[in-house]
Structures are given as structure tokens and as C-alpha cells.
């Protein structure tokens, strides 16, 4: 109980003094997770929607695989990305290992199936509702996908936020591919792991509270910007 109280105090102190290290790793956490989220959304939203409206031979298998990939162990993803980006790996020449870019790549791989799967579920219902109308209006496949994404944008935001939640809280993969290097690849989660390892539970908890607050602030900001609750009844 003492440590929790100390953690709250530490978090409070870190925030009101705008601790330089805290600001740096918080901004890096945001940079990595939001970058991964944007790229993952660009891939997953159209793909999940396409999967909802397109009928093809191995569709069921594709959906089952996508759902299974939601449970990808981050540590395994980290290991695979590490091997691909290491000097002896096929992409070693790019020199991305132990950089924020490597962390973004790992997070994209982790959250894309999650966002695509939630998107598929949501779009399947919307497609069932819109199917006859969009077919009747002689829409192209691209127009159908764009219409579903636009009209289902509030549900898709939930998918994106789920992806962001997983990305910002992820530690296993980014620890492996980022290396938790101070002033280079250290983010909130890896810093928490480090401080816990050092036995500084108060600071670790403080960082943890900052992480939770950050996730809440980003969620609330996105909800506010997209006016979810004001127009949420349709």
C-alpha cells in the first residue's frame, strides 16, 4: 500500500515538475504508438472492410487466421522482427534495429490483425444492412468500401482505440527490437520494466500512472474530436 501511495506521489511530482526524462519517453511512447496506429489503420480498415464484403474461396480460412493472429505473442513478434532487422537478416542493411522505426514495425504487426478483425466484425453487420442498397446503386467495390468505412467510422474508431491500447501498453516486442536505450528507444513501458528490475517501485508505479493517464487522455481526445457521443445514435 505504501508503494502505491509513493507511486501516486512520484507520478504527481514527475508531472508537475515536467520531468525532462518523463516528457521525452512519453513523447516517444506517443510517437511510436500513434505512428504504428496510423499505419495499421491504413492497412487494417480497408482490409477488414474488404473481407466483410468480398466472397472468395478461402474467406472463412482467412477470417479464422486473422482472428488467430489477434493473439500473436508480442515477444515472438519481437523476436521475428529482430531476426529480420539484425545485421545478418534480410533487412539488416537498413540499419533499423534498436531504433524507434523497428519498434513501430513490431507494433504494426501486433495491432494490425486486432484492428482488422474488429473492423471485419463491425463492417459485416453494416454490409448486411447496406448490401441491397449499394448493389442496387451499382456502386463499384471501392465505393462500397469507402461508404462502409465512412458510415461505420465511429465503430472503426473503437477498433483503432483498441489497437492504440494494445500498442501503448506493449513491452515485450519493443524491448527486443528497441533495446530500451536511454534517450533513443526508451518508452514508458520499457522504462517501467527497467525501474521494476532496479527495485524502484515508486518510480515504476509513477510511470505506470502516467501511462494510464496518457491512454485515457488519448481516448478522450479522440472521442471528443470525433464527436462520438453527440451524434452517436445513428
Amino acid at each position, binding site marked *: 500500500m505504501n508503494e502505491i501511495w509513493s507511486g501516486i506521489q512520484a507520478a504527481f511530482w514527475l508531472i508537475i515538475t515536467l520531468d525532462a526524462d518523463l516528457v521525452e519517453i512519453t513523447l516517444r511512447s506517443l510517437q511510436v504508438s500513434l505512428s504504428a496506429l496510423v499505419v495499421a489503420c491504413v492497412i487494417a480498415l480497408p482490409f477488414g472492410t474488404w473481407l466483410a464484403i468480398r466472397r472468395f474461396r478461402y474467406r472463412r480460412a482467412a477470417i479464422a487466421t486473422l482472428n488467430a493472429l489477434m493473439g500473436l505473442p508480442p515477444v515472438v513478434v519481437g523476436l521475428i522482427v529482430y531476426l529480420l532487422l539484425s545485421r545478418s537478416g534480410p533487412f539488416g542493411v537498413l540499419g533499423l534495429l534498436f531504433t524507434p522505426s523497428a519498434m513501430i514495425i513490431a507494433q504494426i504487426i501486433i495491432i494490425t490483425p486486432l484492428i482488422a478483425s474488429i473492423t471485419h466484425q463491425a463492417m459485416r453487420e*453494416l454490409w448486411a*444492412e*447496406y448490401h*441491397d*442498397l449499394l*448493389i*442496387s*446503386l*451499382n*456502386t463499384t467495390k471501392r*465505393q462500397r468500401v469507402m*461508404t462502409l468505412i465512412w*458510415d*461505420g467510422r465511429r465503430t472503426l474508431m473503437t477498433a483503432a482505440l483498441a489497437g492504440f491500447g494494445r500498442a501503448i501498453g506493449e513491452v515485450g516486442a519493443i524491448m527486443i527490437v528497441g533495446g530500451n536505450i536511454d534517450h533513443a528507444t526508451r518508452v514508458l513501458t520499457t522504462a517501467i520494466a527497467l525501474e521494476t528490475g532496479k527495485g524502484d517501485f515508486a518510480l515504476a508505479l509513477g510511470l505506470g500512472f502516467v501511462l494510464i493517464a496518457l491512454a485515457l487522455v488519448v481516448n478522450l481526445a479522440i472521442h471528443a474530436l470525433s464527436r462520438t457521443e453527440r*451524434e452517436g*445514435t*445513428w
Partner: protein
Amino acid sequence: MNHPMSVCLTNVVVKRRQKVVLGPVNLDLAASGVTIVLGPNGAGKTTLLKVLHGVERVSEGVVQWSVPDVQARQSQAYVFQSPIMLRRSVRQNLAYPLELLGQPKSEIARQVVDWAHSIGLQNALDLPAPRLSGGERQKLALGRALIRKPKVLFLDEPCANLDGRSTREIETLLRDATQTGTRIIMTTHDLGQVRRLAGDVLFLLNGRVHEQGGASAFFTDPKTPEAKAFLEGDIVE
């Protein structure tokens, strides 16, 4: 000489799970007027409309429009029995078909306002369409179909579950549409509506056309016992 949008069905059959739900149907439909498809539930009315519109594939036979298929589809619109509302405002619902056609925004905005007045929803333009009442939704669906100025308009029981006033408003819109040259093919169970609107009637039973001809002749002198029984309100099988 064929009018640009007449249609001919030759030996058309639609099967679902090996069961025939429509056909064989041989039919010629002229390019103008109002044709009403009548028949009991399960007779194949909706299937026939969807076949004509090209959204239901035929298992056998040929549907031949007098224009190329692509042109035919682009000149048609369909209003469903349960109107499908996009999760957008009334304004955006009306604009949607024009946006698909790539019309300029200013032109779309002008037409949307004009049509909102025509369908009596000028004060609801910025309301979410799914929040409208049943009659308003049906009028919006009709306006959204007519805004493209289709040559052929299909309607599947457009006034089902509507009160008398809403029904009359829909019928007025349909009459206006026919006067501007839109061909109407619709289904209904309302024989009063058939008398008010129909130029000719198709009577379907068990997936087959039992009777086809002018509306007045259909009512005064039905040729088949099934049609006669249907008009008298008997159960026909």
C-alpha cells in the same frame, strides 16, 4: 420499334437451393407507364423485380433490356420494402447517388434542396435519416431513388405499413415521376392503390405469370379463376 428501356424476359427461371422460386417467365414490358405486380406472399413478386433490376441472378433464361446492361442498370433505381437509410443526415442520403455519379458539389446541393421540398422533408435536412418516421423514411428512399432521374423505377411494396396520408403522398410523387417519363414497376398488396396507379397488371402465382394486361380489364374481367379468387380476397394457392 423498341423504346430504349423496354425489357424482354425469355424462359427466365430463378432457383434457390434447387427449388424454383420464379419461372419459367416469358414477358415483354413496354417502356412507359405503371406496371403493378400482384400476387399472394411468396408468389415471386420481389424476385421478379430483383431479376429485372439485375440484382438477382437468373438460373436459366435471358433478361434482355433494349439497351446495353450497363446502361440499363445506370438508368434504374430501386426502392425497397423496408427503406435502407444510410447512417447519415437526410441531406447526405439525398446527395449520395449524385456523389456516386461524380456531379459537382454545387449542383448536388441545389438538387438536394429541390428534392427535399418535393418530398416534404425540407425542414429535416440535417436530421439523421435513421431517426425519421416510417413514412418519412419511405419518402426519403423514394426521393433518393428519383434524384438520379431514373428511366425505370422499381418499388417493392412502397406503402406497406404506411397510413393513408403517407400513402397518398407517395402516390403523388409516383404520379409526378411518371409524368416526367419515369417507367414504374412496383409490387403492392393494396388493390385500391392498383386501381389508382396501375396502367397494367402482372398477376403472379407460384412463381409464374398467371395474368397480364390492362388494370381495368384485370379488375372487371379477370381471365383466370385464380385471379378472380385473388380479387375476391380468397386464399389462392
